[in-house]
Each structure stands twice: as C-alpha cells, then as structure tokens.
C-alpha cells in the first residue's frame, strides 16, 4: 500500500464514490420518478419519459393530481383505516407476544416446551397457504356486538386485526432477547415478593427498549405495507378498506397515471419519513432478524 502515490489514492477514492453513486441511482430513479411525476399533467408525464426531464420537476408543475385523486377516491378514509389497523395490531400484538415469550423464558410450567415448539413450527407456514381456509373460518366466527351475537367477521376492522395479533416471528424475537437478560434480576425481584405481572412490567419491559422497537417496526411495515391479499378477500366495503387495496380505484376505465403517482406518493411518504428519522432503528431491526437462534 505504501507504494501508492497520493494521486493514485485520490483516483481510487474517486472510483469508489462513482460506483457508490451509480448504484444509488439504480435504487433512487423509480422513487424520484414517482414523486416528480405526481406533480405533472398526464400528457407531460408521458412525453417527459423520453428524456431525463422524467426525473426533474420542470414544466407544468401543480398539485392538481393530488386534488383529483382526493376527488376520485375516499383517500382520507383509506389512510385512517390503514393507520388504525396498524396501530391497534402492533400495540396489542406486542403485548400478547411479549407476555407469551416472558412466560416461555422466565417461568417453568408443564407443557412449556411443547407449546413453544408448536408456535415456532408455524414459522414455516406461509400465510398465503392458509388464506383461503382462514377466509372460511372468519366468515363463520361469532362476535358479541352491541345488538347481541352476530355471525361472520367480513367487512370489519376486527377481521383485519385479530388474525394478525400473534405471529411466530415476533414471539421468537422476544424469546431470543429475553434469554440474554440477567435472570438474577428476575429472581431477586421474586424474592422481594413481586408478582409475575410486576416482574414483567417493572423489570423486563424497561429493559426491552431495543426489542420493542424492532418488533414494532417489523410489524408496522407488515401491517401497513403488506396488507393486500387478505383485505382483498375479506373487505368489500369502502368504509374498512386499507390503502393498498384502495389503489384499485385508480385503475378503473382509463388509467390516469398522474393521479396514480400522486396516490403512490401519498401512501409511501409517511413510511419514508419514519424511515429517514429512525433509520438506525429500522436497519437494526432487520439485522436482528438475521441473528440466528
């Protein structure tokens, strides 16, 4: 290395950055195109694809596509539905999964090993393979509403929330994390006479910041971004439809690409903003799924 002259080193550094930038462009160009196009009228949007103007906010720039998109579909309702389903599922799911993992790691009870094995075995069942029978199950489940018992869960929020409350991955991540917590702390608290519930929320939860962030991020991405097939099957009414399914509105009859781009931008930007602010936590959460147990 000592033989390399400073000029050469500068050149090498330069090449490295050129490579990094070129790769970055590959990942950025569709996203830049999406955002930029959402401000252009359809005729210009199509014409601009023939040059690098496609990636520049030039020409007849306006918010018209956004106004039109809002007129075309109840976007506010869709956003509310998605956010509401995501927030409720994520918070309840974290509570239930962490309690179960807590019990598996710190308590000793008959059947513990068997139950944990069964839960982890479901990791290899892809949701897509049970979607159809699950549809049959939820269409016949009872629900105790205000007017007594009703049958069938179709076209509700609960059908989008309750089946997603527990997943093996979240339980697994909590179990892995709890295993590394010092057991002496828990035993000491028990000696002092703390109940198990107190141990859970006074001692274990305050130590669980990183895993709570990880679980919340992974689950939120799943609930907000990937809820497509399931709501397509179980939600037919507008009042409960999430954003990803709402896209269908923009593909009836003629496709107005400007409005499509506006809608895509609208539903993606909130996640992107979260990501840019919390990128360390996002990347750490993905990395933690790679730590083999």
């Amino acid at each position, binding site marked *: 290395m000592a033989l390399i002259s400073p000029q050469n080193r500068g050149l090498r550094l330069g090449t490295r950055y050129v490579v990094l930038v070129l790769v970055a462009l590959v990942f950025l160009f*569709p996203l830049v195109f999406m955002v930029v196009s959402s401000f252009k009228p359809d005729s210009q949007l199509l014409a601009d694809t023939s040059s690098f103007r496609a990636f520049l906010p030039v020409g007849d720039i306006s918010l018209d596509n956004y106004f039109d998109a809002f007129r075309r579909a109840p976007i506010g309702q869709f956003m509310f539905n998605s956010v509401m389903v995501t927030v409720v599922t994520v918070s309840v799911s974290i509570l239930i999964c962490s309690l179960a993992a807590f019990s598996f790691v710190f308590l000793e009870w008959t059947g513990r090993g068997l139950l944990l094995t069964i*839960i982890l075995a479901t990791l290899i069942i892809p949701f897509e393979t049970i979607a159809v029978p699950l549809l049959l199950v939820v269409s016949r489940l009872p629900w105790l509403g205000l007017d007594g018992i009703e049958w069938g869960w179709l076209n509700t929020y609960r059908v989008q929330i309750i089946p997603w409350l527990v997943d093996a991955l979240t339980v697994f991540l909590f179990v892995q994390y709890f295993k590394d917590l010092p057991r002496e702390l828990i*035993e000491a608290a028990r000696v002092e006479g703390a109940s198990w519930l107190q141990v859970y929320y006074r001692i274990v939860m305050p130590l669980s910041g990183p895993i709570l962030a990880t679980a919340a991020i992974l689950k939120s991405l799943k609930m907000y971004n990937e809820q*497509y097939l399931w709501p397509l099957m179980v939600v037919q009414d507008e009042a409960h439809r999430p954003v990803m399914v709402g896209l269908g509105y923009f593909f009836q009859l003629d496709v107005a690409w400007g409005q499509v781009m506006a809608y895509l931008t609208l539903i993606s930007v909130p996640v992107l903003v979260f990501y840019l602010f919390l990128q360390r936590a996002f990347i750490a959460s993905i990395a933690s799924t790679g730590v083999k147990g």
Partner: protein
Amino acid sequence: MASKLTRSNLAGWSFALPGFALLAIFIILPFFFGFWFSLTNQRLISPNPTEFVGLSNYESMLGLSVITLEPERDDDGLIKRDDDGAIEYPRVRTVTRSAEYPQYQGMREWFRWQWGDDAIVVIAKDVVFMKALTNTMLFAICIVPLQGGGALLLALLINQKLKGINAFRTIYFMPVVISIIVISLLWRFIYKGGDEGLLNNMLHVLSLGLFQPVDWIGNTHTALGSIIFMSAWQGVGFHMVIWLAGLQTIPPTLYEVAAIEGTTRWQTFRYVTWPGLKNTAVLVLIVITMQSFALFSQIDVMTKGGPLDSTQTLVFQAVQRGYGKQDISGGSAISVVLFLIVLSISLLQRYLTRERK
C-alpha cells in the same frame, strides 16, 4: 432445574395462553382445514353438502403423461410437411379425446420436443397448474443468486470506511420500506412497452439509440424475468443489512493477519470473509427461497398471471381458484402442495446445516 421461584403452572399458562389460542384459531386451525378441504369438494357457497373425494383433487392437478406422435404420412408413406418444411403431426386432441385412450381423457398439451421424426408431447391434466409450479420454481432459482448475491456485493460495497457511507446505505435500503404493491405499480409504468415506457426510453438514450423497445411485461419471454428483476431490486437492501450484520461478526484481527500475510483481495474474501459468513449465507438463502414461494402481490398487480400464463404462480393460482372461482378444495390442494415444497426445503436446510460432530 425447577426452583420454587420460577415454577408456576397458573402464571405460565395464563401468560402464554392468549398468544397460543390466537395462533391456534387463526393459523393452526385453518392450516389443518386446508388439508381436509383438499380431500373434499368444498366450495365457498354451495347448495350441495360437502363430500369426501379422497385424492381426486390432487390427481386432477398432478396428472401428467407423455405421448409420442408419429408424423402424418401421405399415401406413398412419405412424411407430410407444411409450407415451411416443418413435419406435420396429428393433433394432440385426436389422442386425448379418443375413446381408445381413456387414460388421457381431458388432458392438454403442456410442451413438446422433437425426437427423430417423432414428436414427444408432455400432456397434463392441469396445464395452468404445471406452469404455475414451474414458474414458481424458476422464480426461486433465479432470484436466490440474484438477490442474495447482489445483496452480498452491496454489503461489501457499503462495508468500507468512507465518508458519507451511511447515506448510501440509507438509499440502498429505501425500497425495502416501500410497499411491494406501490413498487409493482410503479414498475408497471416503468416496464410499459413501446416508446412510452420509462425503461425503454432510458435504455434508448443510454445506448445512443441502439436499443429497440421491448414490451417487458406484455411479452411471454420477458414477463417473468422482469418481475424477477423488480423483486430483487426491492428486496436486495433487506439482505444487504443481514449480510452486513454477518460481516461485522468477523473479528478484525483475522483481517490484520491476512494483511500481514500479504493476501490478495480475493484471497482475503475467500479465506477470511466467506468462511465467517457461512451461517448468514444459509439464512439468506432460506429466507429468499421461502419468500419466493409466496410470490403473489407482484403478479396480481402487474400481470394477473399473463401473458399466456407465463407468470402464473402457485399462490396466485391457489387464490384464483379458492377465492376467485370459489373452488376452496382446488385452492387448498395447491396450498398443500406449496406447503409440502416449503417444508421439504426447510428440512433439507436443517439437514445440510446440521451440527457435524
């Protein structure tokens, strides 16, 4: 080692039960229902009671045969040829609809090849299912090296100590946080055929006008490949992060030793980096394979299985039958086949990565 402090059946069960009960109702129960439905003629809504039909759903799905067609000959015994000189064969229909061969009843041609003067024709009871099966396999086989290998290259690229490297990591990871539905729609525009498509136009400009426009997802030759590329583009950042986590577990002292030994870059990778990444490699491989067998959203948004079933996949077929056509039993049978494939892959992985003593 049960101690009085940590032993409690009541507390243990009551903490774990809510989670287990939900999992049992919404994952385990439908899973077994799926197995059961695949042995019946269950439909979503039907006036007739459901009947047990044994393996007939599987038979009508997996039925496969090979027939040999001899060329048509004229009165002199010479092989008939069409205007382009290609040999003429009797139609497959004459075999599959003939009363002479009841075993081929209802089968259709899947593909054929020529063997001497004869044509070997593979016929299947359910050609669409066969295409879905092979497309899914093909998708998995192509995307594993593309996405897994691409992710490793990105991880090595991003693992350098350079100013501003975090900004690049942020950008490479960005598509991961965007919904695959959004990505698929966006790429549907990018892949548009003719001179309206963004990709066609970009390639046209970059190749200084040499590139001829392609109808990327409207053409049977390029449709599946286009979806593979897009899927890898979206997911590669995810596995880059997993590789990075693996790279960071390799002790720096090993690299120092390598530097002292004066190894080349390739040798360093081959003998230091790669052995340290073995576990990560298995994980990446398995995760991508599993995901690729669940391929649905991209297909539903971009091609609906077309053109000419060239992008049919198992999950898309399972949903189309079980939900679209309300044929729950047929959809369930596909799901069971899919599950068995995933299960065998994961068992194979267990076997390959078992602790060797």
